[in-house]
Every structure is written in C-alpha cells, then in structure tokens.
C-alpha cells in the first residue's frame, strides 16, 4: 500500500554497501491520478534539516531499477506508476544521525493535458517547485 503523503514514512534508513554507510534512502509517491513516463519527470534538489542534496547526488529506484535523474530524461517507455512509491538514495558518507530529520522533497511532471504556459520546462524554470515536508525518524 502507499501512504497518503508524498514523502512516505516507510523506507527511511541509512544505506550500507560493503560495510560502509554510503548515504540514506527515503520513499516518495507520485500523488497524481496517473503514472508518468520517466522522461516527463523533473527531479529537484532534496533538503534534509536545511542542507541541500543536489539532484546529481540522487539515484531513483523505480520498479526495481536504478536511474540517475539525467538517465530518466531519455526513457520514454517506462512508467513510474502512481500506485507504488519510488526510492530515492541520497549520497552522504556516514549517513544521517539517529533521531528526527526534516525532509523536503519536490518533483514536477510534464502534464501534457495542461497548457505549456503552466506545465513545461520553460514554465518550471520560471517558478520554484512546491516542496513537500515531512519529519522522519532515523533509527
């Protein structure tokens, strides 16, 4: 099941690879009534406790496959379904400390049924994204 909020409670933990904590993960859902082709998804920087983690330090995992934001722009035949969260892995050696963290996340999609005046890369460049916020607890 998905949780109602865009930023999911489930899925927030540090990531260990080869015995080292290389970063942290959290999950987000697409709060839309349809899934989107990966090429129509625009990744934004992530903020945790006010610290910015730029787009290029993020890897998406969608339906079991990893993608960088740049890779996604080229993939027009795979959907991120609205029914299942994606995982964001954020590079941060050592990970996040135990305790509460304020996570801010935004994503934008090209809605082709809306006027390009509202929904296009040009429009997005002119308007800051709307961020979702959630306080998550790291064990």
């Amino acid at each position: 099941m998905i949780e109602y909020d865009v930023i999911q409670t489930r899925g927030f933990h540090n990531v260990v690879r080869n015995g080292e904590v290389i970063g942290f993960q959290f999950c987000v859902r697409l709060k839309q009534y349809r899934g989107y082709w990966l090429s129509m998804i625009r990744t934004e920087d992530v903020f945790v406790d006010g610290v910015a983690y730029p787009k290029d330090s993020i890897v998406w995992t969608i339906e079991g496959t990893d993608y960088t934001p740049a890779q996604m722009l080229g993939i027009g035949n795979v959907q991120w379904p609205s029914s299942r969260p994606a995982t964001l892995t954020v590079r941060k050696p050592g990970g996040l400390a135990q305790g509460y963290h304020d996570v801010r996340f935004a994503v934008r999609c090209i809605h082709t049924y809306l006027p390009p005046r509202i929904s296009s890369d040009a429009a997005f460049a002119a308007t800051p994204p709307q961020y979702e916020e959630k306080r998550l607890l790291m064990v």
Partner: protein
Amino acid sequence: MEGKRTGPKRGVSIFSYWELLDISMDLEDCFKEMQDMGATGIEILANGHVDNYPYPSQDWVDEWFRLCGKYGVTPVEYGHWVDCYLFKGRDLTPQEAYEQLAVDIRLAHRLGFTVMRTKQSVIDDTLTPVTYWSEIIKRALPLAEECNVRMCPEIHGPTRLTDRMVSDFVDFIEKEDTKWFGLNVDFGVFEEMRPSPGRPVFPGYAGPSKPEDILPLMKYVYCCHEKFRHMDEDFAEATIPHQEVIGLLMDKGWDGYLLSEYEGKDKHRYEVVSDQLRRHHIMMKNTLGY
C-alpha cells in the same frame, strides 16, 4: 442484464476514487462499490489503474476479467493520454505519437474496452490540441477498427459544445466517414461555473453550454462523463442540469454509458466519496427509471 439494455446506462469512472486507491482501497473494492450502486459499466485510467501499464501480466488481465464477470460490469471507457511532450526540447512526431497511441489501442482491446478517452496534448489555455492531432488520429483509424475501439477526445469545460474545437472534430469525423473517432462529453460543459477558491478562472468564458447543444452532436458521442461536484441530501445538484441532459439522451434513444465522475471536495475521505457516488446514482436511477 442491464448491460443489454438500449438507452443511457449507468457506470462509474473510478478516477473518482483516485485519492483512496492503493491507500485504503483496492481495485476489487471499486467493483464492490459499483455493485452497490447497480452500475454496469466502468471507466479506468489506464496509466493509473493497470498494473505494470502498458504491459500488464496475463495474471492481471485474467483478474480484470474475473472482476468484470463477478460484478457484472462491462469495460466501457479506457482513459489514456497521448503525451506529445514526452522528451525535453522537442515534440513527438505524428508517427511517434501514433506509436504511443497504438500501444494503448491494443491494451484497451486486450482489456475488453470499446471506447477510449483519448486525451491529446494541448497547446494553449483553451485546451486546443496539438496542431497535428488529426494526423495522429488518421494514422490510428485502421488499428482502432481492427481493435473495435472508438477514440474520443473529452469535451471538457471551459470548452463549449458550440466551440470551433468541437466542430473541427465533427468535420474530421464526417470527412473521414469514420465511427472509430467520436466524442466524450463531460457534463461539466453544462455547469454554471461559480467562482470558488482553487477553481481556475478562464477569462472570456461565455458561460456553459445549453443542454440542447448536445443534440446535433449526439450521434458522435460514444460516452459521457457524468461530472458532478456535490449531490445534496435530496440527491440533486443545482449547478449542473443533470436531469435535463439525461432526459434529452433518453428521448433520442442515445445508447451509451453515463460514467459518474466525482470532482468535488475531500476526495481523500472515503465516507464522502462513497456517499457522493451513491447519491449521484440515485439521481440517475430515478431519472432513467432503472
């Protein structure tokens, strides 16, 4: 079976449940809702409701038909998008757009649908489709015929039934002499738009279509979104002349589905959505007499 009846029939667009589905409801729950309402037809949004869209597993397809059979529901309308702005910096070519559309036509057919709500990419604030929309559709007509599905743009407020966009669609149909392209009329076109917070404002909007505006279009209309925002305790809504339009459809023997589309507040509250849809079906049932 209701399904064999001639005349307007009652169905549900499960878009209405989108803020609940996969959170506290599953697909079968939508069918249970329809059973309670006596609805016999369904609209899905393919990108939202088909698992692993656009290539569902055969297990999923089998389950789909099991649900349709168990609850006596006909697959009516397959909602989908032609996403011409798929790639940054360039629009799809007509051929590329057709190829995307073809995947949906085949899937709609595989799932038993006979009507598609084909949402084209728009270019302006009055929701004008891309200039080459007719090229895309023309390429798809043979496949649509082969697959027995009718592609229908949705005529949606603030567009009016008397607008140029609609007559362009009709001209195309007449010129091509095709029944594989038609119209989906959203009852929002009849809505007296009352300004309210969060509702977009359309400068120059000339007011809603009149119920009788549907008459000359009726033969091209394969499906209606019976849009509503708030049914009151008396199962009525003042801002949309539901009964008048349904009456015209009945009088003329229009033989399609009225798909409830709830577009009101609190879509994340099941108690609201389930109640609103039942109220809406009471209104339709009492108007139709069945």
